[in-house]
């Protein structure tokens, strides 16, 4: 009985996160288009794209691993999400956060990326391999400030449990990590720019140079799954940041506001800056953000 209830709650939670994630994507595309002076696609365009991808009749696969790539990716997104408590105090949106703590979430992010990289690798397209190489290299760089920030948080709150961290921020706005530990927050927000792979850190998927990078050979349902994942993964990341740095959310509207606001940060940066080369972006992340992270550790 417990399991059935849990499964139902989980299902609801996942659907909400997925829909919200895709909607945010749509809104952002609209906003970006407006900034460009365009009308832009409808907000629901991401949903149509997913349906269309799945509506492809034919598909090709380069091998089993190629086929599993999106599965890994999606499982990674799902897993990341289900290990994060989405709404503080909610039974439905508590997800499966009892399985582990912050470290689990950080490492589970790799799960999808690794699987995707493998699938892309089996695709055999040189651009995929190049892009994976860039992606991994960039990842090592932006994970460093993020990790330093997380460690700083762990020592600040003396816990690694996300729920506990959120609980510690419930004393008011000024108890949010962004105010109590701004250095760690900024380090992490820099890392978020990298994680979201928006410009200027989008060398990995540079469409004109290496056609979209890893997913260049993906099509049809496989591509659809990658797009679906984008929805849930964005939600997961944003909710994680919201929980860690912005006091979490007590209900869904607050969650939506906060996550949207966090996402807007990378969007704003993204439309304002051109693209870094891989080595430039690596050096960037190992510069100011890392120093911020180290300071966050040392100052405590």
């Amino acid at each position, binding site marked *: 009985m417990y399991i059935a209830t849990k499964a139902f709650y989980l299902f609801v939670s996942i659907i909400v996160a997925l829909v919200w994630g895709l909607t945010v994507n749509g809104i952002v*595309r609209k906003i970006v*288009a407006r900034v*460009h*002076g*365009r*009308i*832009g*696609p*409808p907000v629901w*365009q991401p949903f*149509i*794209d997913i*349906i*269309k*991808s799945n*509506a*492809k*009749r*034919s*598909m*090709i696969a380069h091998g089993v691993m190629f086929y599993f790539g999106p599965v890994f990716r999606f499982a990674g997104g799902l897993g990341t999400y289900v290990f994060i408590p989405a709404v503080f105090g909610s039974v439905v949106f508590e997800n499966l956060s009892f399985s582990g703590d912050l470290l689990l979430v950080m490492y589970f992010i790799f799960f999808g990326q690794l699987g995707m990289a493998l699938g892309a690798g089996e695709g055999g397209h040189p651009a995929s391999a190049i892009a994976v190489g860039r992606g991994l290299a960039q990842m090592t760089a932006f994970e460093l400030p993020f990790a330093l920030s997380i460690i700083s948080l762990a020592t600040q709150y003396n816990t690694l449990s996300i729920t506990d961290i959120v609980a510690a921020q419930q004393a008011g706005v000024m108890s949010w990590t962004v105010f109590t530990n701004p250095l760690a927050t900024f380090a992490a927000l820099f890392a978020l720019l990298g994680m979201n792979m928006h410009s200027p850190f989008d060398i990995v998927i540079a*469409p*004109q140079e290496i*056609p*979209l990078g890893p*997913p*260049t*050979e*993906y*099509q*049809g349902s496989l*591509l659809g799954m990658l797009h679906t994942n984008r929805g849930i993964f964005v939600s997961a990341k944003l909710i994680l940041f919201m929980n860690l740095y912005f006091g979490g959310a007590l209900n869904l509207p607050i969650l939506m506001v906060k996550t949207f606001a966090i996402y807007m940060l990378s969007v704003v940066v993204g439309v304002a800056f051109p693209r870094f080369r891989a080595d430039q972006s690596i050096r960037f992340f190992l510069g100011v953000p890392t120093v911020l992270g180290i300071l966050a550790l040392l100052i405590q």
Partner: protein
Amino acid sequence: MKSTENKIIHPLENAGVPEDQRHLYCDASPRPYPALNKYVERFLNWARANSLWILGYGTGCGAIELRPLLTSRFDISQYGMNPRPTPRQSSVFIIGGYLSVKTLKRVIRSYEQMQNPKFVVGLGSCTVNGGMYWDSYNTVNRLDYYLPVDVYVAGCMPRPEAIIAGFEKLKSTIMAGQAEGANEYAERFDWYKSNQKKIIKDWDMPDYNW
């Protein structure tokens, strides 16, 4: 539906590729994919029509007219259209003008690498009848001898407004379930292939580029 599935598809010869590389290419012939249940298909066609991802092939002069389409002046993204950098993910192939023999080869390869259903839009007179290059020794006069074309946009060059109109035409065709060029290509594969090979003397690709 069953009959098409069970149809024995003879392996292709792939004579164009060197012998020691043949194992690196898939040697299956394309096959047509039948439509699903009418209502499901109608829904899917709606999605297909509203999420047209473009593969632009801009070797001809027509490609210059695609830029305004993508930017704020005309902004086709409002119709759910988007350029994609790879044929694997694109659903509409825009041939931006005349095709020389050399470019035709690439066009065929790219077209075959798109996934069913896929649509072709020919831009400009050159794709219709050769246009001003009709008597050139090295250009192709009629595109639909080599690929199934869904919509021609005539003009030399057609204005962006005309292209948008062409897309609207394409959309309605898709919604009507009549844009089955991919299946046609598979069904008349031998005919198309022989046409293509007639023009392209140095056929150095596999016979079907999966």
